[in-house]
């Protein structure tokens, strides 16, 4: 099928299947799936700037579906999500400007590829280490419990003790008081990666919400998705006016994601927090392998 806006020729079946896979991952892990979508679009010949912008548009649609499902399950902290959206939008704009800078310099594909491989490998390694440590620490009698645990709970506790006004409470997430600035910094960093590497950057925001803000994993998943709707909409607009969005590709991918997101969201109810995080580990690595492959083979299969 021809996509005249980007000038690409891609099989719609391939796009639907990629969308379906990303939909399941998004519903289950609360991530946009850009670590798969970006490389998956890149491998069929789309330039990184189009892969990043188009993926953001597709993520808006996918997140709408997943959030409606998570909201019904009580997994969304609306207050936290709205606050985080401000920091994310700021970060996303800085990330999009960086993409433009490298696009003008003519080395956007190489720079984004290298940065994405480093980030994906780091995230996988850290989450594997943390989830393993948490599962080892958990008391035997809670082995089957769905209650959330983290070996890095002390990091969140330290953050909660920092008194940088204004302090706010997040009753839905069970956080008595946390500095607004810490939330905004976490959101800004997520937004920066979102604007630069594409997607909602849930692969960095979801772990940050758990480890730094101390949000339970199930709530971090739903709230992250809610926040992604706002920030990815802004990112889509920002990239679209820079000529980086082929909405037809996003619409085709989303037909697969719509059904996948529902299945993923339902599946979260059957797994405990550390197990969800452990299952997440191989996914960024798959993205890293695809990016390395595209770098080594001239960027196209």
């Amino acid at each position, binding site marked *: *099928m*021809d*996509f*005249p*806006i980007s000038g690409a020729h891609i099989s*719609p079946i391939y796009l*639907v299947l990629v969308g379906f896979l990303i939909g399941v991952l998004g519903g289950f892990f609360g991530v946009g799936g850009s670590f798969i979508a970006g490389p998956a679009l890149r491998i069929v010949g789309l330039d990184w700037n189009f892969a990043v912008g188009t993926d953001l*548009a*597709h993520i*808006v*649609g*996918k997140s*709408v*579906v997943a959030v*409606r499902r998570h909201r019904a399950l009580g997994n969304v902290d609306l207050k936290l999500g709205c606050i985080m959206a401000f920091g994310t939008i700021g970060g996303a704009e800085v990330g999009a400007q960086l993409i433009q800078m490298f696009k003008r310099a003519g080395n956007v594909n190489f720079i984004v590829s290298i940065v994405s491989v480093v980030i994906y490998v780091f995230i996988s390694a850290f989450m594997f280490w943390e989830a393993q440590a948490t599962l080892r620490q958990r008391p035997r009698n809670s082995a089957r419990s769905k209650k959330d645990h983290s070996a890095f709970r002390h990091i969140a506790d330290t953050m909660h003790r920092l008194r940088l006004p204004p302090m706010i409470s997040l009753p839905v997430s069970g956080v008595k008081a946390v500095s607004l600035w810490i939330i905004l910094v976490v959101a800004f960093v997520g937004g920066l990666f979102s604007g630069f590497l594409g997607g909602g950057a849930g692969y960095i925001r979801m772990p940050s919400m758990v480890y730094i803000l101390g949000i339970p994993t199930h709530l971090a998943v739903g709230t992250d998705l809610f926040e992604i709707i706002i920030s990815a*909409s802004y990112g*889509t*607009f920002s990239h*679209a*006016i820079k*000529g980086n*969005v082929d*909405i*037809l590709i*996003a*619409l*085709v991918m*989303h*037909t697969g994601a*719509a*059904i996948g997101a*529902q*299945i993923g969201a339902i599946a979260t109810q059957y797994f405990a927090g550390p197990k969800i995080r452990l299952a997440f580990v191989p996914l960024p690595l798959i993205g890293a392998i695809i990016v390395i492959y595209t770098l080594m083979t001239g960027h196209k299969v």
Partner: protein
Amino acid sequence: MQPAERGSAKNVGQGMKKEARKALWAFGVEIVVYSALVVVYFLLVLRFIAGELQNLEQRHIVLYALVAIALIVGQAVLLEIITTALLRRLRGRSE
């Protein structure tokens, strides 16, 4: 474990297997129905709007950006309603 308890556990296990089979069947049917709808959507809608969107992207980029967001959100809400209705109907019939 007492024989009565063992029998009860076996019944629970069989019940769960039956439930899983029903859910899998409903899911399979949903995929087929959904795929047919998606093919019709490709042929009727996406091919029809491709040229219009390309023109819009070349002439009014800001309007294109807004239309792009509206299209993806609109499609998301529509498909969510369709998939939810399909799941509900198929699960209802399989029970």
